[in-house]
């Protein structure tokens, strides 16, 4: 049995957002998701992803980037994506807090995704290259949308 077949992935909100709205990098995010689904990867996410995506769609509507109906459709489709959500436990929050300190981050939002990836021994994928640069120093299984990811 190929044990890598069961490798899981944590996607930062920056990747999921690119899938849902048209912007630079949307194509790469779509290809990534398609490959992950075809390979039957488990996509693990903190519940916080929902708050970020809902906020982001609201923001894009308020910026008049997208219409209200498009935003509602995006959220409806987002809710049907088969992500395995984890509620942020005290342990996970504490790990995120420690990572944020190590990485000199003033907030823990990004570290929440990174700590979940670390805890689940999953690959962490983000579109935020500034965060990625630091994340790689802490967790080698951190990737960008442009990386070729081997499982």
């Amino acid at each position, binding site marked *: 049995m190929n044990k890598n077949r069961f490798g899981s992935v944590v996607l930062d909100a920056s990747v999921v957002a*690119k899938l849902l709205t048209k912007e630079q*990098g949307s194509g790469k995010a*779509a290809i990534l998701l398609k490959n992950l689904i075809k390979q039957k990867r488990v996509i693990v996410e903190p519940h916080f992803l929902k708050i970020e995506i809902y906020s982001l769609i609201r923001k894009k509507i308020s910026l008049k980037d997208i219409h209200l109906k498009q935003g509602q459709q995006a959220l409806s489709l987002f809710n049907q994506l088969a992500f395995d959500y984890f509620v942020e436990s005290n342990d996970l929050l504490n790990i995120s807090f420690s990572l944020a300190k190590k990485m000199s981050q003033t907030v823990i939002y990004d570290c929440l995704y990174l700590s979940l990836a670390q805890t689940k021994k999953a690959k962490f994928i983000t579109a935020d290259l500034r965060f990625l640069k630091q994340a790689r120093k802490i967790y080698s299984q951190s990737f960008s949308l442009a990386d070729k990811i081997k499982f």
Partner: protein
Amino acid sequence: MITMSNIQVINATKARNDFFNLLEKSFLKKRSFLIKKSNIPMAYIVPINVVEDQKESQLALLERVRKLRESMTPTTNSTSLLRKMRRYE
């Protein structure tokens, strides 16, 4: 899609003792099981077709997302918006 209404919850000891029976029920009768240890959900046993069906439905979902994206004009970069929302900038 797997829903809690069609999943039988069983504890890990029973799952261990009854494993081949559960495997057969899953394969032949298309039953799904959630295995708990110390009341913590640990694993599922689900029919193989559930996984295959989910893959197909998720790929179809991605196609609907693609069509929605195509209906949009290019939007603000989400990475920079998220950085602002996360109070980095």
